[in-house]
C-alpha cells in the first residue's frame, strides 16, 4: 500500500491552492505555515476553544481537528479569504460594539458569525449563542460579541473621531482595533523569523522529583542543534517578579518542584524537533514526597520547598488597627465563617509564545507579555547580559489577566538563541501553558465580624492561608493586598487581618485579576449577609450604612477622598428592590427552581502596594508634522492604547486620531511599568496627562498664547488660535535630543508610603469602588445555578471611554462567574479546556453596567482604575444569591452542582 500523496489541492477563498504536506497534519498548521493564513489561531489543538474555526464548504469546523487530506477538493474559507459581505459587516460591527478586546478569539468568532449570517441575516440572540457556542472568549464576557452579531445587518459607518478636547468620555472604538478584526494582529506565535529554530521543553512529570540527565550526546538526533540544561545558564538561574525573593530557575537544577517544571530545552530544525517523542529524552526521575494544598504543605513535617523558608512560609502579611479582640467581645452581634477557594487558571485563549533573534549584539525577544521592562531585567539577569543588550518587543497578547506578568518563554528563547546563534521560536501547547503558567492562589479564609446594636461594624478579624505553589512569583503581593483590602469598602474601626503564603508542590500561584482580593471578598461579603440578618437589616441597607465615606480612615490609617461606594450602593437600590420583589413572586409559584438575589461590593487600590511604580509617557512632534505617543503600557485587550491616547489628546488639545502610537518596545518607549494592579489608566494615564500638558505649555509659550487657546496640527504646522492665530512651522525647528521638533516626557509615580509592621501607611494613592447585584435561579433538586442578571455599578472617577469600561465590567463578571460556579484547576487532572471549564457564550447573564463618576483628587481628570475591581463583587454576590434562594451556605468555590446540592441537603 503506497497511497501517500503529499500534494493536497483545495480551494481557499475561491482560489485553487496546492500544498505539499502530510495529509494527516492538522489543517490549522497547514493554513498557518504553508499558506500563511495567520488569522487561524491555535488555542488548544483539541476543539475546546474554537479559535481555529474556519469554514469548510460553508460549515464551521475546527481546523485543528481536521486532517489536511480531508479538505482535498473542498472549499476552505478563513478570515482573510472568506467571500460574501458577512465578514466586512461583522468586522465593522465588532469594532463599533467593542466586541474585540485582545483579539485572539475574534477570527474564530467572525467565522462562526459569518456562517450564521449566511443562513440567517437578522439572527436572534439565541441563534447567535448556538452558532458561536463553540468559540471561547476570556476577555469580553460575550455581551458585546452577541450585540455585534445581532446588529451586523444594520451596522453603520463608524462615527468620526472626536474633535480636539472631546476625546475623554467619548464612546470611542478602540484605536488599535483594525488588526484585531482583520486577522493581521501579530500574537506570540505569529511572527517567525526566517530560518527560525523550534524550541521545546522537557518538563517534569512529577510534582516533586530529583533528576539526572543521561547521555545527551548519544541521544541527540540529527537536526537537533542543541540541548540546553541549567548548566548552560551563564547568568543567575533565578528569576522572580519581586527581585529580593527571586527563586524560580529558568531550567530546574537537580530537582523539579512542580508538575510541568522545565528542566531542559531542545532546539533544532522545526520539523525534526516537532516530531520528537520527548518521553524518550534521557533523564532519570526520582520522585520525592510532595504536597499540593496549603493545608498539607503548611503543616509541620511537610516536605520543604526551599531551605531558607521554614515551614514552607514564603511571607506573612498583617494589618492591625484598634483593639479588635476587645471590640469583638463587646459587639452586639458577631458572625464567624470560613471559605475555601480553588486554583483558578487564567485560560487566556493564546498559550504563551514568542520568537527571538540577535540584532547585532542585542538579543531581541518578541513574545506575549504584560510587563516588557520586567521581562528585560529578569531575562538579562538569567542570561548574564546587560539590560541594553536585551530588547523586548511585546507581541500582541492574546489575553493575560496576570499570568503574562511572569516570565514564560522569554529566558528559554534567550538561552536557545545564545546557544545556537540562530533565530528561535517557542509555542507552548495548551497543556504546557496550563501546567507551567501561574494560577490564582487557592485560599482558606476564616473571619469574624462584629457589629453594634445599630448595625454598625465595630471590628473584623480575618486570617487567610494562601497556596502560593512552588515559587514566589506574586505570592508576597497577595499576602500584602489581602490584609489591606479584606475589610471591603466599609468603615471598620478595629481590624486585624493576617495572611500567610504557603509554598507547595502545586503550580506557582501568581497574579490573577485582583491579587487575592476576590478570595477575601468572598469571605467578608458572605459574612456580611449573616451579620445583616443578625442585625435585622436589609442586606443592601446594611452595606450602605457601613460604606466608607470621604474623610473616613481605612484599617491602614489612610484618610480617603473621592470615595464612591455609597453612590454605587445608592444607585443599585431600585434594582435591588425590583429583584427582591421578582424573586418573591417567582418563588411563590415555583418550588423547584428558586430565585435568589445577592449583593456584594468591592474596593481596590490602584497600582503597586506601598511601592514605587512610575510610568513615563513621551509625546513628540516630528519636523514633518507627525504627532507620536510613546506608550510603553502593554495593551492586553483592556484598551490602554486607546485610553492613554484619549487622555494625552485632551491634555494636549489635539484630536485623538492624529496620534501615531509607538510601542511598546523597550528600545522605543519609556517604562510604563506592568499592565497589572489596575494601574495603567490611572498611573500611565496621569503621565500622559502631564506629558500632554507639558507639550501644550511649550506650544503656548512659543506663541505667547493663553491657556484657553485652541490648537490644530495641519500641514506640518501647529496652528494656535487665541484671539489671533499664530503658527509654529515644525520643519523649521531643530531636532531635540529625542529626535523631535517638539517633545515632552513626563513621569508620574503615585504618592504612597511604605507600610509599618501593623500595615499602617498609605498603600495606594487612588482606589476604585463598585457593587454588583446577582439574580439567579437554583434548581433545588439538581443543585445547578443559572445566573439571570447582574447589575453592576462601578465608580470610575472619570469615565475615559464608556465603551471600553463596559467591556471591562462584562469581562470581569464572566471571570467572577467562572470563579463562583465552575472553575477549579486540579493540578495534574484538568490540564485542558474540556476538564477545566470557563464560561461559554451561553453561560452569561444579562448585564447592566452603571458607571459612576465620583472624581478622585489624584487620578488623571479624576479617573480611577477599573480592570480588577469588576470581578471582585461577582462571586460573593452569586454566593449570597444562592443562599438567598436556597437557605444553603456554600463554603467552597466553585459552587459546582454537587456542592450546592450537598449544602441544600445539609440544612434539611
Amino acid at each position: 500500500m503506497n497511497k501517500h500523496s503529499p500534494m493536497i489541492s483545495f480551494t481557499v477563498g475561491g482560489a485553487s491552492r496546492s500544498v505539499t504536506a502530510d495529509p494527516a497534519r492538522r489543517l490549522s498548521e497547514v493554513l498557518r505555515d504553508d499558506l500563511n493564513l495567520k488569522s487561524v489561531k491555535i488555542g488548544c489543538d483539541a476543539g475546546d476553544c474554537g479559535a481555529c474555526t474556519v469554514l469548510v464548504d460553508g460549515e464551521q469546523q475546527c481546523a485543528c481537528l481536521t486532517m489536511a487530506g480531508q479538505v482535498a477538493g473542498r472549499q476552505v474559507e478563513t478570515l482573510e479569504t472568506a467571500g460574501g459581505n458577512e465578514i466586512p459587516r461583522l468586522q465593522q460591527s465588532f469594532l463599533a460594539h467593542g466586541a474585540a478586546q485582545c483579539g485572539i478569539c475574534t477570527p474564530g468568532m467572525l467565522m462562526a458569525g459569518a456562517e450564521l449570517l449566511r443562513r440567517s441575516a437578522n439572527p436572534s440572540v439565541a441563534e447567535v449563542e448556538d452558532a458561536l457556542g463553540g468559540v471561547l472568549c476570556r476577555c469580553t464576557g460575550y455581551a458585546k460579541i452577541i450585540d455585534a452579531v445581532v446588529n451586523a445587518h444594520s451596522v453603520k459607518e463608524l462615527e468620526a473621531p472626536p474633535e480636539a478636547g472631546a476625546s475623554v468620555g467619548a464612546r470611542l472604538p478602540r484605536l488599535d482595533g483594525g488588526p484585531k478584526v482583520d486577522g493581521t494582529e501579530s500574537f506570540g506565535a505569529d511572527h517567525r523569523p526566517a530560518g527560525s529554530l523550534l524550541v521545546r521543553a522537557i518538563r517534569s512529570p512529577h510534582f516533586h522529583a530529583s533528576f539526572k540527565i543521561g547521555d545527551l550526546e548519544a541521544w541527540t538526533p540529527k537536526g537537533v542543534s542543541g540541548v540546553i540544561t541549567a548548566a548552560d545558564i551563564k547568568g543567575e538561574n533565578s528569576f522572580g517578579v519581586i527581585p529580593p525573593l527571586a527563586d524560580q530557575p529558568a531550567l530546574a537544577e537537580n530537582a523539579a518542584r512542580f508538575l510541568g517544571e522545565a528542566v531542559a530545552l531542545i532546539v533544532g530544525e522545526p520539523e525534526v524537533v516537532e516530531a520528537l517523542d520527548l518521553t524518550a529524552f534521557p533523564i532519570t526521575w526520582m520522585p520525592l514526597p510532595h504536597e499540593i494544598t496549603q493545608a498539607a504543605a503548611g503543616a509541620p513535617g511537610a516536605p520543604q520547598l526551599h531551605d531558607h523558608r521554614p515551614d514552607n512560609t514564603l511571607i506573612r502579611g498583617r494589618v492591625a488597627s484598634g483593639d479588635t479582640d476587645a471590640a469583638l467581645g463587646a459587639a452586639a452581634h458577631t458572625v464567624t465563617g470560613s471559605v475555601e477557594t480553588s486554583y483558578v487558571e487564567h485560560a487566556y485563549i493564546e498559550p504563551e509564545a514568542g520568537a527571538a533573534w540577535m540584532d547585532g549584539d542585542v538579543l531581541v525577544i518578541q513574545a506575549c507579555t504584560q510587563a516588557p521592562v520586567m521581562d528585560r531585567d529578569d531575562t538579562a539577569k538569567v542570561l548574564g547580559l546587560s539590560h541594553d543588550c536585551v530588547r523586548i518587543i511585546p507581541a500582541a497578547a492574546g489575553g493575560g489577566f496576570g499570568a503574562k506578568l511572569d516570565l514564560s518563554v522569554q529566558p528559554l528563547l534567550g538561552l536557545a538563541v545564545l546557544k545556537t546563534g540562530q533565530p528561535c521560536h517557542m509555542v507552548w501547547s495548551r497543556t504546557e501553558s496550563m501546567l507551567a503558567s501561574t494560577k490564582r492562589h487557592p485560599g482558606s479564609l476564616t473571619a469574624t465580624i462584629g457589629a453594634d446594636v445599630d448595625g454598625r461594624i465595630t471590628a473584623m478579624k480575618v486570617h487567610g492561608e494562601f497556596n502560593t505553589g512552588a515559587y514566589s512569583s506574586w505570592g508576597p503581593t497577595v499576602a500584602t493586598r489581602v490584609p489591606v483590602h479584606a475589610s471591603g469598602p466599609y468603615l471598620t474601626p478595629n481590624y486585624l487581618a493576617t495572611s500567610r503564603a504557603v509554598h507547595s508542590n502545586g503550580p506557582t500561584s501568581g497574579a490573577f485579576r485582583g491579587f487575592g482580593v476576590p478570595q477575601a471578598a468572598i469571605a467578608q461579603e458572605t459574612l456580611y449577609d449573616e451579620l445583616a440578618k443578625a442585625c435585622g437589616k436589609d442586606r443592601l441597607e446594611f452595606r450602605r450604612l457601613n460604606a466608607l465615606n470621604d474623610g473616613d480612615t481605612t484599617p491602614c490609617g489612610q484618610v480617603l477622598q473621592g470615595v464612591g461606594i455609597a453612590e454605587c450602593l445608592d444607585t443599585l437600590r431600585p434594582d435591588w428592590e425590583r429583584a427582591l420583589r421578582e424573586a418573591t413572586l417567582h418563588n411563590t409559584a415555583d418550588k423547584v427552581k428558586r430565585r435568589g438575589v445577592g449583593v456584594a461590593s468591592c474596593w481596590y487600590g490602584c497600582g503597586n502596594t506601598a511601592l514605587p511604580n512610575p510610568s513615563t509617557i513621551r509625546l513628540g512632534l516630528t519636523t514633518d508634522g507627525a504627532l507620536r505617543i510613546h506608550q510603553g503600557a502593554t495593551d492586553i485587550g483592556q484598551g490602554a492604547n486607546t485610553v492613554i491616547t484619549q487622555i494625552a489628546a485632551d491634555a494636549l488639545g489635539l484630536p485623538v486620531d492624529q496620534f501615531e502610537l509607538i510601542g511598546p518596545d523597550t528600545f522605543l518607549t519609556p517604562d510604563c511599568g506592568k499592565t497589572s494592579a489596575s494601574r495603567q489608566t490611572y498611573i500611565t494615564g496621569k503621565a500622559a496627562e502631564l506629558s500632554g500638558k507639558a507639550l501644550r505649555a511649550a506650544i503656548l509659550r512659543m506663541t505667547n498664547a493663553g491657556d484657553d487657546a485652541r490648537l490644530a496640527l495641519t500641514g506640518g504646522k501647529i496652528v494656535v488660535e487665541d484671539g489671533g492665530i499664530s503658527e509654529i512651522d515644525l520643519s523649521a525647528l531643530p531636532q531635540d535630543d529625542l529626535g523631535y521638533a517638539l517633545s515632552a516626557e513626563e513621569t508620574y509615580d503615585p504618592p504612597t508610603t511604605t507600610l509599618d509592621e501593623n500595615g499602617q501607611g498609605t498603600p495606594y494613592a487612588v482606589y476604585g469602588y463598585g457593587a454588583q447585584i446577582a439574580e439567579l435561579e437554583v434548581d433545588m433538586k439538581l443543585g445547578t445555578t443559572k445566573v439571570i442578571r447582574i447589575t453592576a455599578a462601578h465608580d470610575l472617577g472619570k469615565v475615559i471611554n464608556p465603551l471600553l469600561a463596559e467591556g471591562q465590567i462584562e469581562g470581569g463578571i464572566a471571570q467572577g462567574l467562572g470563579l463562583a460556579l465552575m472553575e477549579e484547576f486540579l493540578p495534574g487532572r484538568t490540564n485542558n479546556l474540556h476538564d477545566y471549564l470557563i464560561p461559554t457564550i451561553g453561560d452569561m447573564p444579562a448585564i447592566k453596567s452603571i458607571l459612576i463618576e465620583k472624581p478622585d483628587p489624584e487620578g488623571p481628570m479624576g479617573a480611577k482604575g477599573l480592570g480588577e475591581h469588576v470581578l471582585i463583587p461577582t462571586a460573593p454576590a452569586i454566593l449570597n444569591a444562592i443562599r438567598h434562594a436556597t437557605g444553603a451556605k456554600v463554603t467552597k468555590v466553585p459552587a459546582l452542582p454537587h456542592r450546592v446540592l450537598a449544602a441544600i441537603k445539609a440544612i434539611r
Partner: protein
Amino acid sequence: MANRYFRPDNLNDALAALAEGDLVRAAGCTDLLAATERKSLPGDVLDLTGITALRGISQTDNQMRIGGGTTWTDIIRADLPAAFDGLKLAAREVGSVQIQNRGTIAGNLCNASPAADGVPPLLTLDAVVELSSLRGVRQLPLAEFITGPRQIALEPDEVLTAVLVPVAATGGSSHFLKLGARKYLVISIAMTAARIVVEDGVVSEAALAVGSCGPVATRLPEAETVLIGAPLDPTRITDAIVKGALSPIDDVRADAEYRQTSAAELVRRTLAHFVESAEVAA
C-alpha cells in the same frame, strides 16, 4: 508525520487495507486529534471520510440505517420519526457546532467515552451496530459493542459501517436531557434518554437509559418495568430504582453520590417532558 495515509473512496479498499495491517481508523477526528498533542495524527491512518457510501440515513422495511460516517449535523437535519427526537437532542449537545459538523456517529461509539452523548438515546432505540470486514459483516447490539470505558468489541480489521435501528423500536416519542456545569462544549455529569410508547392512555413500551454514571451508558430495565401498563407517571421512578442500575465514580465534574441522585431526577424530568407535551397537545 503520519507514516502512511490512505483515503479510499470505497469500503472494499478500506477493508482490504485493514486486512493487511493495523491502521488508525479515522473519520471526523474530533476525538483522535483531540487526544494527541502532535501536529499530525500519529500512526498509519485509514481516513474513512472519502467513502461517501458510509454517510447518510436510509430506511428499509425493517430498519433505519444510519451510516457510520453520518455526522451529528446530518442527524440534526434529517427528517426522522419522533422516536429519534432524543438522538437529535443529543446530537445538538455533542461538543459545539464545529464538532457536530465533523464528528460521526461511528466515531462517537468507537471512542466509547462513558460520557458519549450519542449512546443513551441509541440504547433506547435498541440500536445495533454493523461491523464489516473482508471476512464478512456481523451485527452486534450496541450494549454488547461497548464493553467498557474506551473498550469496544471491534476487531482490528473491522469498520463500524452503520448503526441499525429496528423499526420495532421506532415507535412513540423520545427525549434527552444532559446535565453539565456549563451550556456549550461540556462533558456531561449525567444524561438521560427515554423513548415511550403510550397506547390507550397507558405506557406500552418504555426504554430508559443513563450515561456518564458508570463505565458504560446503561438501560434501566427495572425502571422501565414500573412504567409499563400504567398511565405515564414520572414519580414511579424512585431514586432507589435508578441508583441500583448505576455505578458512577467521583471525578472532576461531580461526585458519585450526586450522579446517582441527579440521574434519577433527570429520568423523572425526561419523562415529565412527555406528560407536559401531552398536556400542551391536549
